[in-house]
């Protein structure tokens, strides 16, 4: 395998892995704090991407404004789906399958609303518009300012989120909810408010991930849905409870999809058409063989343990 290709694929791994981490942390957080494997998470990403796209088309806009718009709209989508759908169901103490099914339904509704919007305003195959510059060039490796936006922004957000969870009162309350919701309520934690904040955080970060994603590829109503199982694979590698494990998992998934796939393609002639099967394979293997994922690597008592 040529070195230039290897380097490009590693750059891709960093870029995509950082985005996966941003999305997968949301999945881990919802699963631990809300007890919901949320498949509608994919659509918060897409909603954020569309919000960013629409703002960026309105003229020369500072990327920070674009990100903020994506955060707000993504957070709104998440909060509305919580208040309108998940909260009433939780109150009725339904089975986990009912919750999973309703998260699929929420995703379906959001996705096809976006299809309608994209169709009506003719937004298919458009990128979020920011001025493109080449910032680094060495042989075949070209880094643009898209890379300079995507990777650092997501890494900074991941660090911020981790700090928030580990070092702030809100983070402590979230961890309490994840650990034992009944006990959290007894000691006077405002459970509903913490849940609302969690949804805002999860949806907002998913929205920003969507905006960043839309910088590198065209925005489409299916973009979140296509990535969701890769993101779930990352969260499952993190045992659906460990933050550090999820972040590592995100890079492992991205590495397998990019570098390992290219390696298999080059040396063993494996068709690139099999690329989407990689995260699925990871999910099945982890669930069957090592359901705790990477959690034990980072067992410091600070994670969202149940």
């Amino acid at each position, binding site marked *: 395998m040529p070195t230039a290709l290897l380097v490009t694929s590693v750059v891709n791994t960093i870029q995509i892995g950082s985005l996966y981490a941003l999305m997968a942390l949301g999945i881990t957080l919802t699963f631990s704090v809300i007890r919901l494997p949320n498949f509608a998470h994919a659509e918060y990403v897409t909603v954020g991407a569309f919000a960013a796209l629409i703002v960026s088309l309105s003229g020369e806009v500072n990327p920070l404004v674009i990100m903020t718009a994506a955060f707000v709209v993504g957070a709104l989508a998440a909060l509305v789906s919580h208040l309108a759908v998940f909260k009433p169901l939780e109150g009725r103490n339904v089975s986990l399958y009912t919750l999973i099914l309703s998260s699929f339904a929420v995703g379906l509704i959001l996705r096809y609303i976006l299809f*309608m919007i994209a169709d009506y305003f003719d937004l298919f195959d458009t990128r979020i518009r920011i001025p493109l510059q080449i910032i680094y060039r060495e042989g075949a490796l070209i880094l643009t300012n898209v890379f300079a936006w995507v990777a650092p922004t997501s890494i900074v957000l991941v660090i911020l989120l981790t700090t928030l969870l580990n070092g702030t009162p809100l983070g402590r309350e979230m961890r309490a909810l994840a650990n034992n919701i009944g006990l959290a309520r007894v000691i006077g934690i405002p459970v509903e408010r913490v849940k609302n904040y969690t949804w805002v955080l999860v949806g907002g970060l998913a929205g920003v991930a969507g905006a960043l994603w839309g910088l590198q590829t065209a925005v489409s109503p299916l973009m979140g849905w296509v990535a969701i199982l890769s993101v779930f694979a990352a969260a499952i590698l993190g045992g659906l409870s460990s933050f550090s494990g999820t972040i590592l998992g995100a890079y492992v998934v991205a590495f397998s999809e990019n570098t390992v796939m290219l390696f298999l393609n080059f040396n063993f002639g494996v068709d690139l058409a099999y690329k989407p099967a990689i995260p699925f394979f990871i999910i099945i293997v982890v669930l069957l063989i090592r359901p705790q994922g990477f959690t034990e690597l980072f067992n410091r008592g600070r994670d969202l343990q149940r």
Partner: protein
Amino acid sequence: MINIDIGATTVAILTLFGIYALMAISLNLEYGVAGVPNFGQALFVSIGAYVAGITYTRLLPLLAGEQVIHPCRQTMGQALQLRSEIMATQPVAGFINLGFTFLIAAVLAGLVGFAVSYVTLRLKEEWFLALVLLVGGEIVRIVVRGADDLICSHNGISGVAQPFYFLDDPRASAVLFMLLALVLAAVAYFYSQRLVHSPFGRMLKGLRENEEVTRGLGKGISLARARIMLIGSMIAAVGGVLFALNTGFVNTNDYVVTLTLDIWVMVVLGGVGNNRGALLGALLIAIMDRITQIAAIVLNMSGSPIEFNYARFILFGVILLLMLRYRPGGLLPESPLTTDAHEILRRVRGR
């Protein structure tokens, strides 16, 4: 305006109803009765369709005494023509081929279902099975699509003709195919009714309600789960064969998570745990499918700026959410099981 042919529409809806009924009954047995969260229903349906794609291209020419032509790439058109000719002129070969298709599809899907149920034993949390099945379906889809020669990758296999294609009158052929679908659905329905009301069925409901208690009563629960997955998968695969024949086309793009969700909507709408509910759900979804299609065409022709095809999915999502929230039992909720002994006891006590 377009003219809507009421007769043809009814036949189409009833055919679709038969096919959906098979899929819904299958999921109802697995999830509604036995509590196995099959989020991979598209996998079992797709096994039927893929088998149809393979038998119609490889087995059918042999049965008709012709050479097998490779169905993909350069010889694609030739192979398609040969298929159509055989289906139009040699009905016997067509029927034998269909019989084999059903048989192979059911056996293969049954085996996969049986194997999958043992996966549960290894899983830490129960809902992981939902994820494993969902992902398993996607893996099979990607592998089948990636294998160029199996069902021609992205192109798929067209000309998977209905068994009554040889009749001169296309309407008669459609009506007969509808009857075939309805008869198979009826067989599946009466069989699953018997199954639900048998001791085995009651044990499955016990398994659904509480695994530990059922095991404590001395029932072999893993074998029971394997058996119901075997039966359910076989029914789903038969539905898959009919689904492929109905569209005349086998393409991996049809067997995605959306199909699984459609089947879940049928079961949740009709009534979880109630076979009659599964039938009702299948009928309502078949009607809605057709109506939204017609509405989309009418709206497009009248120059509406909104693409109504997307509305179908939004509608299904809304139905699912409303049912889960306000009528979790479905339109026809499951009624309590009564045995003969229970009946007699009730009469003796005079209540």
